[in-house]
């Protein structure tokens, strides 16, 4: 993508100019807020420093304020093993491709080895499930053996911001893993986030603590419920849903 186009659709401001090329976990509000809760847990527990901000006209006119300090709602955090790009605001469907361009730009600038995403598989019977199913879609066959041994391969239609991201990775032949886990369709799901956190830990070779996600699940759900509802409202504008089986031309 040309620099001119990059400048027109978003601004990327780096606070840390010496970032190593590490796997990038992309977290934005989607079904069950799975990736957002995963990212928030890692960022808060390990007190990760902010490495950069993203700003764009197409982002909702909102700003995060934490203990008086204004922060862009789309931020990049850095850890010794992983980078995390988090959006605290839902991205509208018409801007999913713009958001993909942000991710691609970070990928290019830092020469990242891998991009990881995670979303919920909306399951109306989720509350009755004792064991959540975890699926993955990945661009490189070797990832299955290396990181995803106990994870099912996903087959079906994927909708939402991660579908847009995965499509852009496919076009650019970028190494990517998307984790898809059973989750409440409309409610925040910290338990699903804990499962995703474990797999991310396996991928980046670091064990992240998931105790807070499991023990404080009710409190987390209470605090995150507005964002979950907003996300659902935006998602309902898209006419299709994650989970529909693929058209079986090949059967």
């Amino acid at each position, binding site marked *: 993508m040309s620099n001119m186009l990059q400048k027109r659709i978003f601004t990327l401001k780096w606070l840390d100019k010496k970032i190593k090329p590490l796997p990038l976990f992309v977290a934005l509000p989607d079904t069950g807020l799975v990736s957002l809760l995963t990212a928030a847990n890692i960022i808060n527990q390990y007190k990760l420093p902010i490495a950069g901000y993203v700003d764009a006209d197409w982002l909702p006119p909102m700003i995060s304020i934490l203990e008086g300090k204004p922060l862009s709602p789309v931020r990049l955090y850095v850890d010794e093993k992983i980078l995390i790009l988090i959006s605290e605001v839902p991205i509208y469907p018409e801007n999913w491709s713009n958001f993909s361009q942000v991710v691609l730009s970070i990928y290019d600038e830092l020469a990242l080895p891998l991009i990881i995403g995670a979303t919920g598989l909306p399951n109306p019977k989720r*509350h009755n499930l004792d064991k959540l199913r975890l699926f993955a879609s990945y661009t490189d066959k070797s990832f299955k053996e290396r990181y995803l041994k106990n994870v099912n391969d996903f087959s079906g239609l994927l909708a939402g911001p991660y579908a847009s991201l995965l499509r852009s990775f496919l076009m650019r032949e970028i190494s990517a893993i998307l984790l898809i886990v059973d989750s409440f*369709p*409309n409610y925040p799901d910290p338990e699903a986030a804990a499962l995703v956190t474990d797999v991310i830990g396996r991928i980046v070779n670091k064990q992240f603590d998931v105790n807070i996600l499991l023990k404080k*699940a009710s409190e987390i759900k*209470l605090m995150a*419920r507005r964002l979950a*509802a907003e996300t659902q409202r935006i998602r309902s504008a898209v006419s299709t849903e994650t989970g529909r089986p693929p058209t079986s031309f090949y059967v």
Partner: protein
Amino acid sequence: MYEVMNMGFEEFEEMIDEFFERFERIIREMRRKMKAFEEYLTEDIEGGALKPLTSVYVSGDKITVTADLPLVEPSSIKVELLNPKILYIEAKIKREIPSTYISCSLPPCTFKYFKARVRLPFPATKISSVKLYRDILEVVLLRE
């Protein structure tokens, strides 16, 4: 600035009036949005009631309503079909939740209950089952 200096008094007065009208419109819109936000999050602020997140699914002759009720006392849950198209849900929260926990833009208060009047897509005749599992209340109703 030059334009303002060359204005007549009436023109200037009109400009000021227009400015205040626009300002009032913005304030009214902000108030409307704040009220909508409060209504969206809460059932009854003065009564200390939050509105739970709810979902409705229809399958055959059954309507299933789920509500996310984190931190509630299971024994306090009340479910009632107020009329064929409205299901009422109420539950006591185990501890008082300060409004800042939900949003800093809510007036200072505490929440002790979840309360919701859920509009059903089809008239229901009766409640068939009520279950609470992992904070999720599941109410199954039979369609008319």
